[in-house]
């Protein structure tokens, strides 16, 4: 089942173009990481998907138009945009009461089960909780909602590494069941790498890379080249080259692994490495897209 389908999604704020014609298709059961520099349009794209912002172009989420049908859509979609958006005056028990009162798919007992594992007491007010605990509370509420799609926009921004790790661990262990779909943006790319099933890079309102993690792992290889082999390796047209401790690290797209092993140590790059490579070298995306390898069509 297709959960999100976008065609020519556009959005401009005055003269600034936030989304410049995005085509996107997210199937059921995927965990898609949307990665891009600040101001690339990630948040705008996610806001359009959850009905927070109007847009031009075609967009269907679970078959609905998010802008005009937000309230119906929210029965099957849940989102966390930004940390600590829970109202500060609310008590934990009141938050659970309210969501249980208005949401047909909220399982209160489950939320209480998640909270029992934390230090959050039900009588306490949100303003008395630390930022990390507010994030835990919000996640507990969201995970107790039996939603088909969960959208997370920087859900762990400003949290320390312990909270971030717990956040993604519980998301994977207690929530994801292979049927739900998750779309997440984050700057802490490394922490998400083994969580994602798909990755998408956005820059200046355009998709510059969109592929599954299996494809990512089979396509991209990084070689720490022996100094005498660098010239030979360069002949295979790496998409990026960087220097670490005086050694050249070259990043290749769709080059045979056996061919590369003779140049030096070969490994799969991290998403962060590839992201830096793509962003560093702006000629690469357009050149690559001309070959049809970087665009959304890749999947």
């Amino acid at each position, binding site marked *: 089942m297709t959960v999100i389908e976008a065609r020519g999604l556009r959005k401009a704020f005055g003269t600034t173009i936030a989304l410049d014609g995005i085509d996107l298709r997210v199937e059921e059961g995927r965990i898609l990481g949307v990665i891009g520099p600040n101001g690339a349009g990630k948040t705008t794209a996610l806001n359009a998907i959850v009905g927070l912002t109007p847009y031009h172009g075609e967009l269907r989420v679970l078959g609905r138009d998010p802008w005009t049908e*937000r309230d119906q859509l929210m029965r099957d979609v849940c989102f966390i945009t*930004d940390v600590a958006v829970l109202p*500060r*005056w609310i008590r934990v028990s009141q938050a659970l009461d309210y969501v249980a009162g*208005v949401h047909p*798919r909220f399982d209160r007992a489950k939320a209480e089960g998640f909270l029992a*594992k934390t230090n959050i007491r039900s009588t306490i007010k949100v303003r008395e909780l630390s930022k990390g605990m507010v994030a835990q509370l919000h996640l507990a509420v969201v995970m107790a909602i039996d939603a088909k799609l969960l959208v997370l926009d920087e859900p762990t921004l400003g949290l320390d590494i312990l909270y971030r790790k717990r956040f993604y661990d519980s998301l994977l262990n207690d929530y994801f069941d292979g049927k739900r779909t998750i779309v997440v943006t984050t700057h802490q790319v490394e922490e998400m790498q083994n969580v994602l099933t798909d990755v998408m890079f956005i820059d200046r309102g355009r998709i510059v890379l969109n592929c599954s993690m299996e494809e990512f792992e089979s396509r991209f290889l990084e070689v720490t080249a022996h100094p005498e082999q660098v010239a030979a390796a360069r002949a295979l047209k790496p998409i990026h080259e960087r220097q670490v401790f005086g050694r050249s690290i070259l990043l290749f797209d769709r080059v045979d692994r056996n061919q590369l092993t003779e140049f030096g140590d070969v490994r799969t790059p991290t998403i962060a490495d590839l992201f830096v490579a793509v962003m560093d070298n702006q000629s690469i995306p357009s050149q690559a897209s001309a070959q049809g390898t970087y665009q959304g069509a890749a999947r």
Partner: protein
Amino acid sequence: MNTPMNTSSNVMPESSVASQVIAHVPATRRMYWSIRRELWEYRAIYVAPLAAAAIFLFGFLIALPHHMHGVKTLDQAHEALDTPYELAAGLIMGTAFIVGIFYSLDALYGERRDRSILFWKSLPVSDLTTVLSKLTIPLIILPLLSFAIAVATQFVMLLLSSVALLGSGQNIGALWARMSFFHMSLMLLYHIATVHGLWYAPLYGWLLLVSAWAPRAPFIWAFLPPFVIWGLEKIVFQTSHFLAMLQYRLTGPEPSSAAAPHGTVMEIISALTLAQFLTTPGLWIGLIIAAAFLFAAVRLRRYRGPI
């Protein structure tokens, strides 16, 4: 709502089965919880009128011996007591009115300021339900609440003065008959329903609209435009129709001059019959304007995010 299965907090592939039997939440239930949410957030809605009542009763208790002193006849007792009763109702309803104004100005602004709108919008509650739930506070909840508190306060006052009268050896049965407590309460309810519930609707509609729109300082945005319009009209046309219109809206429809009695506020209000009130064009024009303001507020909330 809460599925009894799956109480264990762990992995739940079986929960998809549960989701299929989960019922639909009726609109009335969403409205009920949305209103309860407002009462959690703005405790002044009930604390302020209660505090006004408590302060008034305290003052009444102190002044009671003074009032009762020298009261020889029942007529004198009536006069001594009549004014405080109206004052009590006036004070409590006035407090509720002020709370209603500040509440309405903050209702759709506060959720944007503290960014919690991002949480509320992640739940299956429409902008219409949200705005209507916020409208019921000044239009229905506050008037009914202040009515209940005012009647309770007046009843306590009646008991207190009865005790005082009993002490001075008067017949309290006559006092109770004279006060016609039930009639008084009924008049108060009528006043609340017509004036606070219906006549002031465009006022609250305007405040909610400003609250939904204002980029900051909703108070200024709510009160500055009327002031500017009044000033412009005065300078350009040398007239004050706009001011007169506002005054008319605030003071309410007046009974025809022939029937206008000279008496207490309650008596003037009661002179305006329901038929007279319902045939006042100002009422219906006001309600249409209120509906337009609310429609705009609902639309605006859809576009609005955190500030």
